[in-house]
Structures are given as C-alpha cells and as structure tokens.
C-alpha cells in the first residue's frame, strides 16, 4: 500500500537530471520559446510582452532572473541570465545560478540598468507579497543609477490573501505603491487585468484563467530614484 503524502516536504523526492528537467520544464511556460528557437535558423519566436520589454530597455546591462531569459540572448545586448535551478546550466552554460534571491544583490551590486522578472514561481510562493517585497531589496541593490525593474506576476499564484474580501486590482496596486515607498522606486507603468466572464448561449462560462498566464496578468515597471524613462506602449500591441 502506498504511503499518503500531503506536502512536497513530507518525503524526499527523487532527484535525477531527468526529474530536475521535468520539474523545471513544467514550471516555466516560456521555456517553450527556447525550445522553438534554438535550432531554428530562419525565425525567432518571441512572446508579445517580452517584445515590449526588449524595446523598452535602457541601454546598458540587463539581467533576467528566473524567467527563462536565456531565450532572449539572441536579441538583448549585455545580458546576464540568472536562474535558481542548476539544471539550466546543462543547456545554457553561461547562466548564473543563485538559489536564493538575496544572492543577486550581493553578487552584482549596482550592476544592471534593467532587471527583469516575469512570472517567476520561485518569487510567488513562500509568504506571498511580503516575500516579494523582501526580494526587491536584493533586486534594487543590483540596479545601476536610475535602473529599471520590469516585474510581473499572476494573482492566482500569490498565497496569503482573501480573494473574497479584497479588491484584487487595489490589492496589487497598493503593493506597487508600497514598493515605491520602501525602495525609492517610481512606478512608470502598470497593467493589471482580470478575466471577464460572460455566459455563452448554453448558460456556461469559459473555464480559462486570467489574461496572460505566461507573463502574469499584473505587470509593473519601476525606475530607481527618478521617473525619467519613457515607456513606449506601442510595442505591447505589435
């Protein structure tokens, strides 16, 4: 008879290269783009939000953390890709592995002009927005003067809040305002969207989640210390 398991930590999972890759692969939707592009000599596939980011970066050094940023190596100059899972090194050897977010600011103080995190599950869990706020301390430490942070998340992956009593939009916008105050950031741009549910002819609703599950339905761009950078939103609808 099988033993019962309630939580991942109840028993030690098997760790092989294959199982590590499978865990990574099923948890990182945008890895699909790497798989599509790596052997394609004619076309480069890019997600619409990544296209928007690529075209709004400041000149200089860019870091993409825990977001399969290696697939953008072909289109971003001076790119540092940081991931938390060592398995990434097997297919992208130049990746920097930081198992914890706090290592980033220590390893790369005042280094990056752009810092990108798109829908990283490793950021979402733990203590919800409190954890993300803590991680921002490290992200901001890695920023160069007037650097940008592109940060996006999915509301459905954030624990520790009451979805019946809180206005979702206000909850996340208030969080952005908290980050502004705490880290001397300026919110240059944001996009917060939720599903719109309308009955079909048979009286049923679609079963889909919120818009943009790849990148997250909640998106922020902050600038450190100033709000001098202009965001070009035309690229969102390219």
């Amino acid at each position, binding site marked *: 008879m*099988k*033993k*019962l*398991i*309630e*939580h*991942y930590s109840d*028993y030690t*999972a098997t760790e092989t290269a294959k*199982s590590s890759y*499978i*865990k990574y692969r*099923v948890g990182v*939707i*945008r890895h*699909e*783009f790497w798989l599509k592009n790596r052997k*394609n*000599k*004619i*076309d*480069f*596939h*890019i*997600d*619409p939000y990544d296209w928007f980011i*690529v*075209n709004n*970066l400041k000149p200089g050094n860019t870091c993409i953390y825990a977001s399969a940023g290696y697939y953008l190596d*072909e*289109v971003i*100059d001076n790119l540092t890709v940081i991931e938390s899972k060592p398995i990434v090194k097997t297919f992208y050897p130049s990746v920097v592995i930081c198992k914890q977010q706090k290592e980033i600011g220590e390893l790369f103080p005042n280094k990056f002009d752009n810092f990108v995190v798109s829908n990283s*599950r490793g950021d*979402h*869990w733990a203590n919800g927005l409190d954890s993300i706020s803590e991680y921002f301390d490290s992200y901001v430490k890695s920023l160069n003067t007037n650097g940008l942070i592109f940060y996006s998340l999915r509301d*459905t*992956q*954030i*624990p520790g*809040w*009451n*979805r*019946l*009593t809180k*206005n*979702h*939009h206000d909850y996340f916008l208030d969080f952005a305002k908290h980050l502004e105050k705490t880290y001397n950031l300026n919110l240059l741009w944001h996009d917060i969207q939720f*599903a*719109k*549910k309308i*009955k079909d002819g048979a*009286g049923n*609703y679609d*079963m*889909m*989640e*919120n818009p943009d*599950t*790849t990148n997250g339905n909640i998106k922020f761009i902050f600038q450190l210390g100033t709000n001098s950078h202009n965001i070009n939103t035309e690229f969102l609808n*390219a």
Partner: protein
Amino acid sequence: MKHINKNIKIVKDKNLYQWTKNWKRIQENYWDGNYKIRRLQQIEDFVRLNNYTSVFHVEEVILDLNIPVVDVIEKADLALVTHQGYSRYPLDGIIEQCNRWLEHSDLYLCLNRHYLNIDNKPIDISVNDDYQIAITQWLSAKLDNCVVVDLSRDYVDDGGYFTWACPDRHYFIKKTNQ
C-alpha cells in the same frame, strides 16, 4: 536591441494547460510513484464509508480514483467535482452550477482557492477575514437550501500541497429538502 539575422515572430504561447490531464501523475512521479496524495484517499474513503455506489465524476486532471463511477449524472447518487475549471467560473456561476448538480444528486465539490473570484467581483455578504472560513461562509450563504460541510484541512498554501493536482477545498453539499 541586438541585431538578429532571423525573422522576428511575435507569438502568444497557448500551451498553458498542456500538462493538465497528467499533472497528478507527473507530480507523483517525483517520488517514483511510491506515494499517494492524501486528498485522493480522503475522497475514496468518503465515497466508501458513506455507501455511495454511483459517482458521476467531473474530472480534469486524471486522478486514478478507485470509486464506482457512472457516465451520466442522472444515474448518480453523488456528483464528485474535481475539475478546476469550475473554480475559474465567476462566483455566481459556481453557485448556479452547484444547483444544477444538486438537482440530481448529492455533491462533493473540490475548489481551488487560488482561482476563486477570478473576475474580481465584490460579494454582497459579510465573511470572515480568514480566507478558508470565508469560502465556507460564502458557499453556505449562497446555497441556503443545503447542508454544506467543510471537509478541508486548513493551512497556508505555499505551493507544495498538490493543489493543482487535486483542489484543496473540499465540501460535501446536500439539499435539505430531499
């Protein structure tokens, strides 16, 4: 932006749910299939110990449950809903759908707490600040012709509880006028 000698194609990835059906099997394989998610045992025990003999299972993730199933709800004495798509219905839609199932049988409803109120609509009743209690209060208030029994374990979900294999909030719901 770096110069690139390829045609740039801006494409939206549409494969979010590509592993959904096998998600429970994928997760169990992390432990070489030697363990069984406790919630699944709970469902099987509930069906057996309460003598349900004809279960209409509304399934999305394949759960490999050992229960006596029937293919149409009209033949069922219990509707078991583990399909997480219903957690992504608007709140009123979930209640409407529960009432449809309850026209035919008792209901064992599994909800994924992280999806509820997917479209950010205010609710018209007062509920507890504790989200887990609030969900039960909301269901009980809206299904006022029913007994609603919360069969869930309470915890702060940190993403490690197999919630996307089998939803975390479990309710037995039965009409009171039957």
